[in-house]
């Protein structure tokens, strides 16, 4: 069982949350100018790293807001959570 710290509600049980996939994927501007390859890359391709992963979570049974988390995909340890739109704490780039 993971304990996850929602940036708004504090530490809660994993069962209150839903994982919502990779974070920091920006929808391309001017999508009409994208090639099929670029669109596929945005829509389907994922980093899926073994190790540190930046991902979105939804506090589904709480405040129902999305936030970001930094989690290791091998140990499952969450090292930080932060609000949508923010950069990961203590790091210059995502």
């Amino acid at each position, binding site marked *: *069982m993971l304990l996850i710290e929602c940036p708004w509600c504090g530490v809660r049980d994993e069962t209150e949350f839903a*994982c919502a996939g990779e974070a920091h994927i920006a929808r391309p501007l001017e999508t009409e100018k994208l090639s*099929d390859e670029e669109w*596929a890359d945005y829509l389907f*391709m*994922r*980093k899926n790293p073994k190790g540190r*992963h930046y*991902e979105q979570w939804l506090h589904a049974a709480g405040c129902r807001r999305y936030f970001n988390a930094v989690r290791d995909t*091998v140990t499952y340890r969450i090292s930080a959570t932060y609000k949508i739109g923010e950069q990961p704490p203590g790091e210059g780039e995502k």
Partner: protein
Amino acid sequence: MLRAFRPPGLENPALNMSKYSIFSLVRNAVSYHENWAAAWRSPEPKPEYDALIVGGGGHGLATAYYLAKEHGMSNIAVLEKGWIGGGNTGRNTTIVRSNYLWDESAHLYEKSMQLWEGLSQDLNYNVMFSQRGVYNLGHNLQDMRDIQRRVNANRLNGIDGHVVSPQEIKRAIPEINIDQGCRYPILGASFQPRGGVARHDAVAWGFARGADKYGVDIIQNCEVTAIRQENGAVTGVETTRGSIKAKKIGVVVAGHCSVMAEMAGFRMPIESHPLQALVSEPIKPIIHTVIMSNAVHGYISQSDKGDLVIGAGIDSYNGYGQRGSFPTIEHTIAAICEMFPVLRRVRMNRQWGGIVDTAPDACPIIGNTPVEGLYFNCGWGTGGFKATPGSGWVFAHNVATGEPHELNRPFALDRFVTGFLIDEHGAAGVAH
């Protein structure tokens, strides 16, 4: 199920050419079964092969077997970072069926089913394939409409199956709860009589022995750390046991396919998730078939040893840890207890997780990659075991000829660019 023991003869380099039969059984009985030859060799890697298969699970070993048998390529090696069959091959719930909705997947899984039906004889190794039937339960009206549609589609593709009522289910499986007042009542099911289970370890060992017989080198404890390329074509791999050259490399590594793709310099639409399963203590025969429920997320069968084999859903987060969350297990057990109240006091023995490679359309990715000579077979997600022989058969064709077989052409990586996805979320059995 993950077994603690290693297959016999792993360290014994002796070549085994003997055929398993009643006579070899009797002959070895005389020496108290202490002199069985090794089922496959454990050779040192050669500096160069005609082709390399990365990943010594069922699919990788099947690919090597069919490469040697069907395409005459015997100067090949299977590279496995741990021991063969120790990943998802040893961790699944061993269900085999071919009742998929769309033509593309139905043809692929049906090819696999036909190979299963002759596999033990073909391999001269008992994979304990037992066609005990598979029920896919429906719990609401939409489930039942989907089931009818899927069964009709299957029959048009020549795949057996029919829709059964709750009363028919109850007649076949007396322990099941068809009370219409419960939270998720059983309204019916699809039934594929040719579906069933096979012994997962035996599948890996049988293919390994079969491939070894043709001269394929099966190299365990050999992790690939880099893929070498020149001018957009593969030239070999770096491994923990030295560098090995090859102009054709087939990658069949399930949950780690994104890691391998990153080594090769392209991206995959795959996310790796933990998928859990568990087995109970052995009990007397009570469930003679396979029962799967997509909606409440539990599936169950009984192994020949008597343990109930129960599959759970995937964890929502990405994970490589080969373990999942307890709430996922709890959810599945709740569903099983409602379906089979008689099992409420059965104790569970073991629980484990495997890493499944889920694709956005719940279908595998089999075929060529942006790198010449590099072929991927992945994305089988939660349902790869049933496809083991068929997957190896088509992938062997793809690796040998450099072109996809008609059966795996629709499953190319570029379907995510062209938009020709094959949505099998309904028939995949486990929600992604």
